[in-house]
């Protein structure tokens, strides 16, 4: 495989850290990925030489910053193959993207008696906004069940879809199980009922090529910090036909056309949804991350990740008493597990001491934990800078945990 992981690791300054004297093994990528130097440098350079507020400025710095900002929008829109860069709204992250749709689409298009379909494996960010909307609108939250393997019940989904369905909101990849949902099939079926579909792409977009035009999804939400970019920035892709009709979200500078005390008119897309001074440094860092991914080639990183994932799954399965939660046929990059009867928190505390970062707990998916009747899991999540040696370290660490607790 012509993928030189050791060379790539050098792009990420943090990976050479030591934790309690051990080399850092970072397997908490589903929570937040690490940043390559080019992302960090882009932010520093921006603040050291270009920083300015954007739009409407006639001075040099402001024009340069605006141009860089809007070019980044084009590049990111292009990365997901959006038809028009007007359809790419910058937000503070996936959570805000979903909230924006819940507010601006929901308050316009959802009425009493409608239903909104989500799945059992959603992240809280793709549950609670819809709960609140449903409560406000007297609409119904309809939840697609999943099987023991952690796959949605597609037939049950079909039965839930009807003319009163206002929206389907579903995750591309489950952050707690790693399940890859059949979103193309879901979108096609929903569209046959004229129902729009929102995809929570937080865990999808860094792992494979996302093409919103081909998927034909109506909304796609993602966070930069989960795809090697900075924190505090993310995006909402939305089809123009919906964005145009949706209510504004936050109100303030940038998103207006004309303000008088009597009447205010709103700006055109995408600015209508971007009130206030935008996070220019964040957007440029986001863009640098996208360019970094493009340069590595997402086909290559995907292939490498698949192989690593297979290796890790086999290695973990060989540990006696280890139980993997989520065994879907279509699955990537995330392995949630329990070790015998050991509480995830106990296991996590010890694994941490060996320099390995895994996450323990409910992973912001409590209903999913309830479904499996477990208090939480230990989650190891991988990206292309992880190695088989790191998997081996994890296995060793887990065996140490077993020895200590059993």
């Amino acid at each position: 495989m012509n993928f030189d992981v050791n060379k790539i690791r050098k792009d990420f300054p943090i990976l050479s850290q030591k934790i309690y004297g051990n080399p850092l093994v970072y397997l908490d990528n589903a929570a937040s990925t690490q940043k390559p130097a080019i992302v960090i440098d882009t932010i520093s350079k921006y603040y050291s030489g270009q920083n300015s507020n954007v739009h409407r400025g006639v001075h040099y710095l402001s024009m340069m910053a605006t141009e860089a900002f809007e070019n980044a929008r084009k590049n990111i829109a292009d990365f997901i193959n959006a038809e028009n860069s007007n359809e790419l709204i910058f937000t503070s992250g996936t959570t805000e993207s979903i909230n924006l749709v819940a507010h601006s689409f929901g308050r316009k298009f959802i009425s009493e008696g409608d239903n909104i379909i989500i799945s059992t494996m959603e992240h809280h960010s793709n549950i609670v906004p819809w709960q609140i909307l449903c409560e406000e609108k007297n609409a119904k939250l309809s939840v697609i069940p999943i099987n023991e393997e952690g796959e949605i019940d597609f037939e049950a989904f079909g039965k839930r879809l009807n003319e009163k369905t206002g929206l389907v909101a579903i995750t591309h990849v489950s952050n707690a199980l790693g399940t890859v949902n059949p979103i193309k099939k879901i979108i096609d079926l929903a569209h046959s009922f004229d129902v729009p579909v929102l995809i929570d792409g937080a865990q999808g977009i860094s792992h494979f090529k996302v093409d919103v035009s081909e998927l034909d999804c109506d909304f796609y939400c993602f966070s930069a910090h989960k795809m090697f970019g900075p924190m505090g920035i993310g995006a909402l892709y939305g089809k123009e036909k919906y964005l145009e009709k949706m209510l504004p979200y936050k109100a303030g500078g940038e998103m207006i056309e004309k303000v008088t005390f009597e009447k205010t008119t709103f700006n055109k897309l995408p600015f209508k949804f971007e009130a206030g001074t935008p996070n220019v440094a964040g957007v440029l860092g986001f863009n640098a991350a996208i360019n970094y991914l493009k340069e590595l080639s997402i086909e290559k990183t995907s292939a490498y990740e698949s192989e690593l994932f297979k290796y890790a799954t086999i290695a973990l399965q060989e540990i006696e008493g280890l139980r993997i939660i989520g065994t879907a046929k279509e699955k990537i990059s995330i392995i949630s597990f329990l070790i015998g009867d050991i509480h995830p928190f106990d296991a996590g505390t010890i694994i941490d001491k060996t320099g390995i970062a895994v996450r323990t707990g409910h992973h912001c998916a409590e209903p999913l934990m309830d479904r499996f009747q477990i208090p939480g899991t230990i989650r190891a999540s991988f990206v292309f800078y992880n190695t088989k040696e790191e998997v081996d370290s994890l296995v060793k660490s887990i065996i140490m945990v077993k020895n200590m607790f059993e």
Partner: protein
Amino acid sequence: MMKIKEIESQIVEEFDNFDDWMDKYTYLIEMGKSLPLIENEFKIDNNLISGCQSKVWLHASYENGKVIFTADSDAIITKGIINLLIRIFSNQAPDDIINADLNFISEIGLQEHLSPTRSNGLLSMIKQMKLYALVFKTKMQNQ
């Protein structure tokens, strides 16, 4: 009537006389002052081009196969730029307007005004002018 390409070259030549930005802008300001007046009846909100920090009114009519533009702005540099555009586009055939490339803008060192986010909206003006040309062309074909 000269062709668009020819007028462009002429303008580039004029600007070649200046080697610093101050002279260029002084010339633009002169051009702004000498912009032929637009009829007052056309200085209406309906003819405003949006996206400019200064107000720009643009009016178009169609005579003998040619599009005639008149325009005004409350900012003089903007008027200077409009003047250049009118010299180039007014009195030309719709197709020539639609297909024009307008390289002269960067050649005379005004590329900074070309940014899509530039507040004087040079791009909006050009877009609007081409749109008018398209409208007249379509009308003509449907007659």
